[in-house]
């Protein structure tokens, strides 16, 4: 297996803060790898370490099996798209895009061809002679992508590239990026705080929090089997009930929560462990459908919102907030304040055994709001 990027035990401190705390990961060739997490989690720092813009305090970085830790940025087989696009203001679009090729001493004729291809890829051919300040945000973004791709890098680093754009534009460019990835086969290392973007784009997602890796896996893994409360909350909406293990019998754990006891598949827990019962809002049933559910709760509707084809319910059950996402329009007669019955099936429940993968008590306390 050839890995485009291998990070080994990276540590980076800024003053007293440890921004990147012993982070290791491997990215396969041609993979679309996303790093997500809240602001300040260390994802951008990690990206910049891979880029070589900052040096790690300890740890190594390999690309295609070669140790690049101490090699400067301009010699690394990568290029980068910046959050603020960073197009050279004193050069035209054409000159911006050809810059990397000039640095590689590509002949003028070849440069012309390549730039044409790159601009075509992002549909910006007619803007070749404009200056960056004459372009809109989305257009500058496209040029930045073209500029980074024209040099045919092995690895493309992207630092929240869609952050400064409006929602619809984000969705469109998201699709285009996906296509470009497919067409060019370049390894993408994509950093964002928008987990929906990452879920839509990534082959593998790495969730970071306070400098450590919370969980790394495919979007499906992260969504359906989060390994910590942090990941469960960060990725998508969730229902989380805190509880403790009452007993373990066979392969089943019985968890006691203040909404009742639940039976879940055991995950090597012991009696007395602090755990959480977790399921996604889509696995919550309401009204009549709740009647056949394994577990039922009665509560009061706090809020109803419709988002296109689904309706989201926020329900208060004994002081606990539960969420349900159901296909279709709101149920007849149900509105804020109505009494409603929720249900969930045993198969939809998962057991979470830790608040954070860091193992750090401080971090856990913050996550749990204590």
């Amino acid at each position, binding site marked *: 297996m050839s890995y485009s990027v291998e990070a080994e035990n990276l540590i980076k401190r800024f*003053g007293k803060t440890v921004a990147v705390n012993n982070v290791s990961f491997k990215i396969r060739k041609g993979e679309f790898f996303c790093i997500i997490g809240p602001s300040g989690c260390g994802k951008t720092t990690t990206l910049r370490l891979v880029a070589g813009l900052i040096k790690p305090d300890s740890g190594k970085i390999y690309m295609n099996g070669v140790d690049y830790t101490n090699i400067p940025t301009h010699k690394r087989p990568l290029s980068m798209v910046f959050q603020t696009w960073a197009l050279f203001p004193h050069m035209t679009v054409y000159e911006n895009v050809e810059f990397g090729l000039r640095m590689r001493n590509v002949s003028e004729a070849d440069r012309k061809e390549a730039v044409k291809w790159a601009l075509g890829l992002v549909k910006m051919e007619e803007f070749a002679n404009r200056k960056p300040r004459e372009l809109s945000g989305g257009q500058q973004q496209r040029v930045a992508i073209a500029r980074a791709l024209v040099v045919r890098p092995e690895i493309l680093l992207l630092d929240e590239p869609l952050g400064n754009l409006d929602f619809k534009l984000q969705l469109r460019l998201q699709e285009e990026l996906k296509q470009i990835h497919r067409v060019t086969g370049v390894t993408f290392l994509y950093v964002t705080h928008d987990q929906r973007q990452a879920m839509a784009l990534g082959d593998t997602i790495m969730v970071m929090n306070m400098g450590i890796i919370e969980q790394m896996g495919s979007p499906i893994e992260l969504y359906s089997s989060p390994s910590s409360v942090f990941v469960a909350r960060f990725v998508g909406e969730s229902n989380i009930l805190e509880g403790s293990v009452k007993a373990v019998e066979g392969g089943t754990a019985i968890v006691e929560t203040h909404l009742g006891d639940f039976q879940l598949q055991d995950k090597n827990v012991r009696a007395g462990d602090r755990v959480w019962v977790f399921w996604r809002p889509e696995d919550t049933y309401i009204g009549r459908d709740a009647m056949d559910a394994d577990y039922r709760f009665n509560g009061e509707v706090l809020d109803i919102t419709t988002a296109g084809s689904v309706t989201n319910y926020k329900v208060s059950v004994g002081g606990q907030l539960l969420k349900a996402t159901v296909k279709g329009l709101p149920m007849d007669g149900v509105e804020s304040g109505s009494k409603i019955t929720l249900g969930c099936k045993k198969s939809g429940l998962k057991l979470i055994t830790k608040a954070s993968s860091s193992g750090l008590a401080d971090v856990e306390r913050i996550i749990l709001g204590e």
Partner: protein
Amino acid sequence: MGEAAAPQRLVSSYLLLAPMLGVIIAFLIVPLIMVGIVSLYRPTGTGYVLELNLSSYVRFFTDPNIYGILLSTLANSAIVTVMAFILAYPVAYFLTMKIRTFRAKTILLIAMLIPFWIDFTTRALSWIPWLGIQGILNQVLTGLGILREPSPIFLFSPFAMLLVMIQGYTLFMIAPIFIVMSKIDPTLYEAAKALGASPLKTFYHINLKLTMPGIGVGTVFVFLSSVADFATPRLIGGLVTSIGQVIRDQVVFLNLPLASAISVILTLIALAIVMTVFKLMNIRQVFE
């Protein structure tokens, strides 16, 4: 990015600063410290003795000839500064807001810069054809009947001195205001308009307030330059003496301690003014 928000020790930056700082420390800081030290020596008739005392400072505060002149110099400079501001602002505004192309702006600015290359003294003297008794101004005024006969007050008088200084220093007020005003985000004007501000209010809240740092820089520079300027009063100020002239005279009389003492006091006043203006006008904005 949420990374290093606090300034760090960057060796590269220090290396880059070293040459400039070296020159400055050697040729600015050291001489200034020397002035401070010499001000504390005792003056003899032909020089000074290495004995520390405050006699020069006492002399300053007790001799109305000296501190009085300082006060009048400060007053004159204040007038010059205010007038320079009033005259400069509309020009800076015009250049920033009403002239579109970078090239046109540059040309106009440089056009106003050219007279600067003529040295100060000649520029001061170039007003003589205008301000003398037989000068153009007098001839026009008598011709129009506003004056019955030519007046000598226009030349070799405080009026002449102020006029020349204002003419000379206005550019130094125009430039910083222009630079700062150019940096104002144009969408702010639109935002103000959208919020219902009249043109006058927009001008006050956006234009005037945001140009404060530039005004501050210009004010400081014009004021301090005019305070220190002894050439203009000497040339066409007639009987007006400036504190700069006083210092120079003391040097000529070989009373260096007194000259130094006056200088120190002048510097302290200058520093006080600068710090006050900077605080008031949030100078840091210019560099961010």
